[in-house]
């Protein structure tokens, strides 16, 4: 048995969470409440230190210092105040009458990222993937690689046909779509099977902690 208080707390919390597997119970509810509260608080504090202080506070402070020391407006640093004002506008949601103003900062966020996503997805998901699928169908002297490459190209082609929305999946087209979803299912199965090891690792580590570190039953 461990004599470390931290270990005991951790063991209590671990068992509390795991008890959910049997059924919902007061100990799980307690752990859940602690978890939700502490994590929300943690998140808030991290945002405060990693975003608010460096991005808003420090920049505005610099701008004020420049204004006091040199008497000029440092527009670069002042501009971050604008970001802060947009952030405050977001809070106007809490005032029902003018809540709609919060759509402005929202529009800035959505607009910024929609432009970014458009390019990002088009380049790294569409163009780069097309480029990587361009492989020779025949590799001299390597039958395995040749067959593998042909299957990859056919599989990608059929998989794309499956994702066609505006054409009925009938006849040859439907057949290809079917082959496409077969390929997709193989991948899903493989990815499921592969993840089992990662998830079991997590449980093994927890059990090792409970049985070994806490109870001291191993070795």
């Amino acid at each position, binding site marked *: 048995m461990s004599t470390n208080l931290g270990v005991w707390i951790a063991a209590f919390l671990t068992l509390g969470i795991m008890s959910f*597997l*049997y059924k919902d119970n007061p100990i799980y509810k307690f752990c859940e409440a602690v978890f939700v509260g502490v994590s929300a608080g943690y998140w808030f504090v991290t945002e405060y230190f990693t975003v608010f202080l460096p991005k808003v506070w420090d920049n505005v402070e610099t701008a004020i210092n420049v204004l006091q020391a040199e008497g000029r407006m440092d527009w670069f640093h002042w501009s971050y105040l604008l970001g802060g004002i947009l952030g405050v506008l977001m809070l106007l949601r809490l005032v029902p009458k003018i809540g709609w103003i919060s759509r402005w900062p929202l529009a800035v966020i959505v607009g910024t990222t929609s432009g970014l996503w458009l390019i990002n997805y088009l380049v790294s998901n569409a163009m780069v993937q097309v480029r990587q699928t361009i492989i020779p169908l025949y590799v001299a002297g390597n039958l395995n690689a040749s067959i593998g490459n042909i299957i990859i190209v056919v599989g990608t082609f059929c998989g794309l046909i499956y994702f066609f929305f505006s054409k009925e999946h009938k006849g040859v087209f439907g057949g290809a779509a079917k082959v496409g979803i077969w390929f997709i299912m193989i991948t899903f199965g493989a*990815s499921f099977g*592969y*993840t*089992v*090891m*990662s998830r*079991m*690792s*997590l*449980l*093994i*580590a927890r*059990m*090792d902690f409970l*049985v*070994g570190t806490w109870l001291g*039953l*191993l070795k």
Partner: protein
Amino acid sequence: MKLFDRLLAIDRRIIFLLVAIAVTLPLFSKTILHIEISPMVKGVYDAVNNLPPGSKVLVTFDYDPASAPELQPMALSFFRHCFSKDLKVIIMGLWPQGPIQANIALEDVFRIPEIKAKNLKYGEDYVNLGYMAGNEVVIQRMGSDIQATFPVDYSGNKTSELPLMKGIKNFDNIDFVYNLSAGYPGTMEWVQFAVDRFHAKLGAGNTAVQAPGMYPYIPRQLVGVLGGMKGGAEYEIIDKHPARAVSYMLSQGVSHAVVVFFIIIGNLAFFATRGKRKTSE
């Protein structure tokens, strides 16, 4: 037939219990599961094993406690291997909690009598440069000047004053880079920047989910990759020092077998009761 009907409607808690037993019981056993060594793991091992004593190895910890079950054993066995071969180890992290995981692994490795006897000194035999924010940009900066990228180490010592760091300018002075990663930034970035740009020699340890994604880079850009707990166990076996990962592999094998067994039983029950259900519907 009753049996199969009951199997189909089995209480989930029985499955949970069986999984818990399948994972826990093997922890008490000392049996070592036979593990085939894959070429990916052998690649990493050989690369380290062929380094002459005194070579400088950079180990980057790019993961946090959530992935520690899979990656911590790899860190431990790698440190053991390096120290037993008298290699000099430089530690860093692109994830904030990485260097802490490194310190935990160091504590563990120094408990091994053989390593303890070597009486290794901080600053001469190993250093921990700590965490640096900036993801792949950090790797890029290291390509021109490592000491300028990490002016101080994890505990605040000046990097330039550490004896081990004397004469280390950039990747040209590093003989091998070992990356333990659980996502971004991780092996992909090390391949793209340290290997493609600065021609470092790189080996990696990844989570099981990630590892297959690295196969295309082997062996040209990556000497090999350890995938999940199994990769860690293979390394321990080939290094002839079976440790934590190997001892966990029995749990892995049993629990995988149990999951497969469930699927088969479920299907047997399903097919055995199918005819009956059709008529009753």
